[in-house]
């Protein structure tokens, strides 16, 4: 009980989290099996096409993560609870991570599919802008000053930057339809032909697994933030004790 008095009460990882981690390990192995062994090899692209399952999954999780930032930024401005700020900050970091995965797997795919690492194709441009927007968000969180101020400013920026995303998408579509023809389908199912049934199953499975990965990472991130806070409080406590 003494630890509670002095403020060093390290947060406990819930059993739910441990359970999810084990589930994730099992499902991730299944996903790897589905992607590399079970699903058929694509006729034109060959093995490179397998990158597609993780690429699409990461892109979806990035959007989900930024949506979570937006929702919790609004909630923070209304309720001013520190846990909301923690969720938004952690989610933004995970979102940047997954956007980075999208931006690295994309060119690898593009190199073999389009014979170039990078084109200023609308979807690529918007994803790059998204990446920079949330890097800027993290920069604001790394500012000096009290956490309330940083959390408030980051929340405001989280809202402002999220309304930018649909505008970027719309602008690029106008640009594309008026000046350039659409040359590339983003995925095999857009450029006609349709997607193989087994591929679709694998894709949906991968989407689910990567979403679970996001949830686990979010829980872990919040746990780390809470631990940091507890250690900070403990440091303050010791400093006060020494001053006396």
């Amino acid at each position, binding site marked *: 009980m003494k630890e509670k008095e002095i403020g060093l009460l390290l947060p406990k990882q819930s059993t739910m989290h441990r359970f999810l981690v084990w589930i994730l390990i099992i499902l991730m192995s299944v996903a790897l099996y589905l992607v590399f062994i079970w699903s058929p090899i694509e006729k034109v692209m060959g093995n490179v096409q397998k990158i597609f399952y993780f690429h699409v999954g990461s892109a979806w999780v990035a959007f989900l993560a930024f949506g979570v930032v937006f929702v919790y930024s609004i909630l923070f*401005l209304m309720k001013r609870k520190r846990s909301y700020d923690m969720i938004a900050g952690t989610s933004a970091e995970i979102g940047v991570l997954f956007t980075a995965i999208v931006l690295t797997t994309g060119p690898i795919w593009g190199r073999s599919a389009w014979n170039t690492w990078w084109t200023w194709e609308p979807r690529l441009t918007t994803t790059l*802008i998204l990446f*920079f*927007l949330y*890097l*800027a968000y993290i*920069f*604001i969180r790394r*500012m*000096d*000053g009290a956490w309330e*101020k940083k959390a*408030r*400013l980051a*929340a*405001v*920026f989280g*809202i*402002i*930057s999220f*309304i*930018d995303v649909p*505008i*970027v998408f*719309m*602008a*690029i579509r*106008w*640009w594309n339809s*008026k*000046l350039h023809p659409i040359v590339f389908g983003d995925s095999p199912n857009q450029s006609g032909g349709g997607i193989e049934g087994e591929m679709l199953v694998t894709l949906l499975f991968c989407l689910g697994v990567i979403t679970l990965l996001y949830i686990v990472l979010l829980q872990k991130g919040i746990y780390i933030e809470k631990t940091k806070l507890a250690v900070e409080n403990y440091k303050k406590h010791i400093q006060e004790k020494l001053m006396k």
Partner: protein
Amino acid sequence: MRALIKAALAITWKDLYAEWKTKQVFSTMLIFSGLVIVTFSFAFDPTNNTVRAVIPGMIWVITIFAGILGLNRSFISEQYNDSLHGLIVSPIDPSSIYLGKFLSNFIIVLFVQMITIPLLFILFDYKMNGNLLLFLIVLFLGSVGFICVGTFLAALSANSRSSEMLLPIILFPVISPIVIAAVQSTRIILIQVEEIESLFSWISLMAGYDLLFFVFCFFLFEFILEV
């Protein structure tokens, strides 16, 4: 509503008067724009005919780079003698501070544009043959969007000690839609007149952007200025 506008105009007047007395920001922005034009003249040979293609981009690069210099100053200068706290505790709506700062920044950028764009045309020997009225509308809409977001984010970054470094990093991604739209529509007006029918969608995008971000910044501004 009237009190809000009155307070905003008072802040605009104060800023412009202080600027008139020192001419510090305005002259810095002008000299900087001139240097950018000189650098461009090295990068793209002005006697070459293909240089026409880069003029629309140059107009906006000059506006945005010079604008950032002014935006950085607009809230930092309030921190001497703690004037920013004075503004916060004064009995006015926080949104009127935003409105006032927005107007003064906008007017300064407009003056800079009025000098630099003709200068650019003269130095690059470019004859304006597009529709002048449409060109002015595009300039206006683009600058409003840029300054509207820029003033807001300048206030945000003024909270940090390293605000000069922070502002460009957080500003460029957010204004990317308006920069894309402004450059595209300027290009259509000045060079590709045959694509004039697609101009309307770009202009409506800029108007929509201006409106949306102005409303959001106007209402979110009070969260930035809390002590």
